[in-house]
């Protein structure tokens, strides 16, 4: 590439900053690209790993659109949580692998964020076994939720449903996104096809397929410990 930037280069490079171009990109260009190169949504949750440290303090980020998109709908969600507070504590106690769970309403979504240890399906399954009724009370208010409740009798479908709503965790290393895309398409070995010039486009297309994502897998200020290790160390019983 020649070092000198001509007026045309400057024009093209400046394009993304112009409003007209931005509109054009999001309405025409991106849909056209994604039609040309279909990109499937990447699965949510932590990246599978054999390292113990990667399997402790894992993130679950659920964004679930409420059926009733109104202050009344949001209030119902708020009540569902408040009424089940005791059951939630009991569940945390009996499942034993959860560090914390948070419920947040954003827009007309009820979000559930939690930090848990070990395998995702075990975590959800053990929760169903302990406080399935709480899941039922919340999921009932969510779009499409009726298909998987009562969760006690739809265990496999319920776990799958939750997994499908768990946000994709965008890797910190940009090229790992390419690995994830390859894995999704069933390619076993890394292709080595890391054309970094294509990366921004691939990220745009992926974020079209996964509109909500988690950036990274949560940043910890200390290495991973299990909830029980923390409790044990603090002498508060586990």
């Amino acid at each position, binding site marked *: 590439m020649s070092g000198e930037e001509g007026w045309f280069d400057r024009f093209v490079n400046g394009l993304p900053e112009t409003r007209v171009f931005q509109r054009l990109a999001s309405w025409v260009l991106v849909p056209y690209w994604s039609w040309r190169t279909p990109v499937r949504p990447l699965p949510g949750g932590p990246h*599978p*790993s*054999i390292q*113990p*440290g990667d*399997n*402790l303090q894992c993130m679950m980020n659920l964004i679930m659109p409420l059926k009733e998109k109104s202050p009344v709908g949001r209030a119902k969600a708020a009540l569902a949580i408040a009424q089940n507070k005791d059951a939630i504590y009991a569940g945390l*106690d*009996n*499942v*034993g*692998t959860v560090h914390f769970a948070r419920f947040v309403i954003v827009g007309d979504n009820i979000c559930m964020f939690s930090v848990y*240890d*070990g*395998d995702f*399906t*075990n975590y959800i*399954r*053990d929760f*169903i*076994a*302990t406080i*399935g009724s709480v899941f039922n009370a919340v999921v009932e208010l969510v779009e499409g939720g009726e298909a998987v409740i009562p969760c*006690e*009798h*739809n*265990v*496999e*479908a319920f776990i*799958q449903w939750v997994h499908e709503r768990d946000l994709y965790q965008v890797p910190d290393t940009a090229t790992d996104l390419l690995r994830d895309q390859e894995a999704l398409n069933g390619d*076993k070995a890394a292709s080595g096809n890391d054309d970094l010039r294509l990366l921004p486009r691939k990220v745009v297309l992926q974020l079209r397929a996964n509109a909500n994502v988690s950036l990274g897998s949560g940043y910890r200020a200390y290495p991973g*410990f*299990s*909830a*029980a*290790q923390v*409790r*044990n*160390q603090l002498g508060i019983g*586990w």
Partner: protein
Amino acid sequence: MSAVFDAADVQGNILRGYRKPRVRYLILEVADRIAARHWLAASTSGRGDDVPQITIGNWGRTKPETCFNIGLTYEGLRALGVPNSSLEMFPNEFIEGMNARALKLGDVGPNAPETWPAPFDAPKRVHLIATIYADEVAQLDEVQQHALTDGKAFGLLGALEGCAFPNDVVHFGYRDNIMQPRFAEVHDGQRYEDGQPKAPLGTVLLGHPTNFEGLTWRVPQPEALGHNGTFNAFRVLEQDVVGFEEYLDRAASDLLTRPQIDELLPPGAEAKIGQALSIEGLSRHAALREVVAAHLCGRWRDGTPMALSPDAPDPKVDQANFDYVGDSRCPFGAHIRRCNPRGGQIVQRVANNSRRLVRRGMPYGPLYDPAKPRDPSKPEPERGLLGNFIGASLGAQFEAMSCDWLNLGLQDPRITGSNDPITGANDPGTSWFDLPLKSGTTIRLRALPRFVRTRGGAYAFLPSIPAIRFLGSLMA
């Protein structure tokens, strides 16, 4: 859900073991869908002139001379033409298959499915696993020939053969086949009171109450297909017997240098261990090898549970009836304690009894004789375990045990971050194992290598007898 349970509806190796000394697995590919359906229908026809008859669960007082059972992979069900509406009701892990679940099962590096030899290098072609049990090799041959006479239904991709050693000994020298879940509905003269709650039938059969109160697993429809079926994780697990014995040597030498060694093996205690093993003049080093072996498994090699007899093996001690309460000196990380925490405290309080497995395994390869000098220039023969880990939910039982208990040690904060010492995905650079002492402190062993290497396997559905008939009657 049908009201009465009839053992004649399920295949014979699920609720009870045959205890035959020989087994052969035929790994089959459906070659002709129509012929394969005829074969399945014939296998439950009660005539047995065309195809060996599937052994059923109520074989009664006299066990058949040879036993014959089948399992089908997801690809196998597809190959038989099971309709999509039924296929999609099977659980994800079964649909994806064992190869795709490698990370959960610790099948990485030299254990990864990409390294598995044929026929497991082509998982899409593994459709049906037929199992023959018998006393003699000639009988295995006979049944195999009988099963494949029509020459049309199936292609034989491979065969694996196992042979039991006397007294239920398996490679690494332990006595196995002591514990199995016990069911209220099944009378099994081989199983004695073990102090554990009886397992509900749903532990091992679809359509019955599970170990989680109020929870049911999805039964693939139609009812005839799914009800009373179950899932099997078939595993070919190569065991590095020489590596295991060498590790015991190293660990024993290491322990002899530790200040707390007298607490682990009080002076003179080697004589008691020697007496139990009928070895005169057992050295401290040799006794410590046995002590380490006992800690790794949670049982002395003769089967004596550490929970009841932590200082020496004792043939008078009950091998089945014990628990991990109070300050049991069975290590938290020992194999049998990881696999079944019984009534002991664990992190996942709801899970104590929820992950139990029916195990039907048999060793393969020649028995290792430590007394026989080895020729280091010759490669060791391959040895291992042909394991079947059976449960109504692969995800809630086999996989849950494999990923959180065997390989992460999540069930107890004192073992979290370590792997099962016998069958875990250990890396000598980071592995560790704690031996508990009477005083409450521990001695830590390090650098355990990986003793067990996965060489193949498949998730199979073990259909009920009505399900086999259903599959045999499929049209289109």
